[in-house]
């Protein structure tokens, strides 16, 4: 499937507004199934990350976005129709009892695995929600369970800088700071590693790409 014609336009606009500098540190764009995982501070994140990828990788890459925010009306049109996003329910760990929560979580992972098929890459934000840009929150477990189900995919950490200053939580007028998207070296997944260690290591990989 080829990318929606509007996707290029929106991606161009997002790159212009964010003036984004793209750097590949210890990795290079590769046409293989990849999970790009990044810090999350702005609604611009998935559009900017998607448009930072080389054109030939974009149409193979699906952002994962929160259902509760992106499901309605125009937002849904942009996310699903234009960017081919996968909408997932936001994980509320601990809510609704352990069993209910984990059942929903595993449904979400199945949905992601199905959405990846054997050709699509994913963009995910393992913090689960947008932060202030000062600190990267602890990662939710989804990334770990996804890796267990798809151990062969490449894991690329991404740090997105200044996007929270361009369009912070709760604002709709952008300020044109210069953003930066840094892709780090691919990370190995080892099924024997405990979940908490893996998630901490993944978070460190993202934070280590920070410039300042």
């Amino acid at each position, binding site marked *: 499937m080829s990318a929606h014609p509007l996707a290029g336009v929106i991606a161009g606009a997002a790159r212009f507004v964010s*003036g984004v*500098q793209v750097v590949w540190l210890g990795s290079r764009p590769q046409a293989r199934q990849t999970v790009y995982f990044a810090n999350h501070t702005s609604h611009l994140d998935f559009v900017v990350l998607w448009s930072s990828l080389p054109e030939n990788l974009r149409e193979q890459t699906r952002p994962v976005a929160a259902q509760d925010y992106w499901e309605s009306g125009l937002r849904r049109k942009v996310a699903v129709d234009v960017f081919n996003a996968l909408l997932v329910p936001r994980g509320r760990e601990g809510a609704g009892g352990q069993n209910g929560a984990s059942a929903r979580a595993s449904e979400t992972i199945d949905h992601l695995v199905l959405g990846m098929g054997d050709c699509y890459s994913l963009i995910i934000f393992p913090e689960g929600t947008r932060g*202030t840009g000062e600190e990267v929150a602890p990662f939710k477990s989804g990334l770990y369970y996804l890796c267990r189900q798809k151990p062969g995919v490449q894991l690329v950490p991404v740090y997105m800088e*200044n996007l929270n*200053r361009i369009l*912070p939580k709760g*604002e709709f*007028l*952008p*300020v*044109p*700071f*210069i953003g930066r998207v840094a892709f780090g070296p691919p990370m190995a997944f080892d099924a024997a590693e405990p979940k908490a260690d893996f998630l901490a290591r993944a978070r460190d990989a993202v934070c280590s790409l920070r410039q300042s």
Partner: protein
Amino acid sequence: MTQWFAAINPQLLWALGGVLGVLAVATIAGLVIKLVVKTPSAQGTIDNLNKRIRSWWVMVAIFALTLAVGPIGSLVLFGILSFLALREYITLVPTRRADHHTLFWTFFLFTPLQYFLLGIKWSGFVIVIPVYAFLFIPATMALAGDIQDFLERAAKIQWGLMICVYCMSYAPALLTLDIRGGYGPDAKLLLFLVIVDQLSDVLQYVWGKLLGRHKIAPVVSPNKTWEGFIGGVLSATAVGAGLWWMTPFTPAVAAAMSLLITLLGFAGGLVMSAIKRDRGVKDYGTLIEGHGGILDRMDSVIFAAPVFFHVVRFFYGIL
């Protein structure tokens, strides 16, 4: 429009032709030196030099085209440069979440307004930012309610607006000056300022590379040397004096004006460099290959333009 084309007189074309000639010579010289030098460090220097020369072609082409369009062209060009410069500056300066609205109005109200006022030739352009924006910025920030580092934050935004927009806008403001004795208004004064100022930067770099020994400000700008400074200022002043025919000045006055421009340009380079060092970066951006960002290239114009404008207006303008 036709009036403007009539005003693109032979002198302007001669000056632009001269710039292109110098660039052509520099391009050929760069290619020749590239073949001659052998050591890796010299190769690095010459590669960077050739990148700079390539970027010069692009910059000269853009500048010449906007001059040809007329005053609107130069205003739009400098308006865009101000916007990009302010963006480089603000990205480097710590701001807080509460500054968001203030910054929005700084970028999208005051920056275009300054150039709009120049476009309609309203002399109030000299007070809008120093008075109204100056008060607007802390007022909106106080309303946003975040008191942490309040004075620093307000001052940093005010300073960025003054440097990147207000001071920079004095360069195209030269197009609005009415000069006594039937000179202009046309683009030659702007071209004179830009040629002398940028040539001074280039010649300081060249003299510094050739003879530089004694550092002038090792902490602020390690590459600046006394030899480069004196050689650059003197040779750019000499060239400026030789360009008297495109200005309302006599050769002696053209030399004095050029000296003023080069000294202020030097101060601008030093100040903008001090900010970069303080923030721990080498360049303001990556927009111009080999040069860095807009602010790395425009730092000297920013300081020279307002003073040059007021001196010219005082001695030569119809007040």
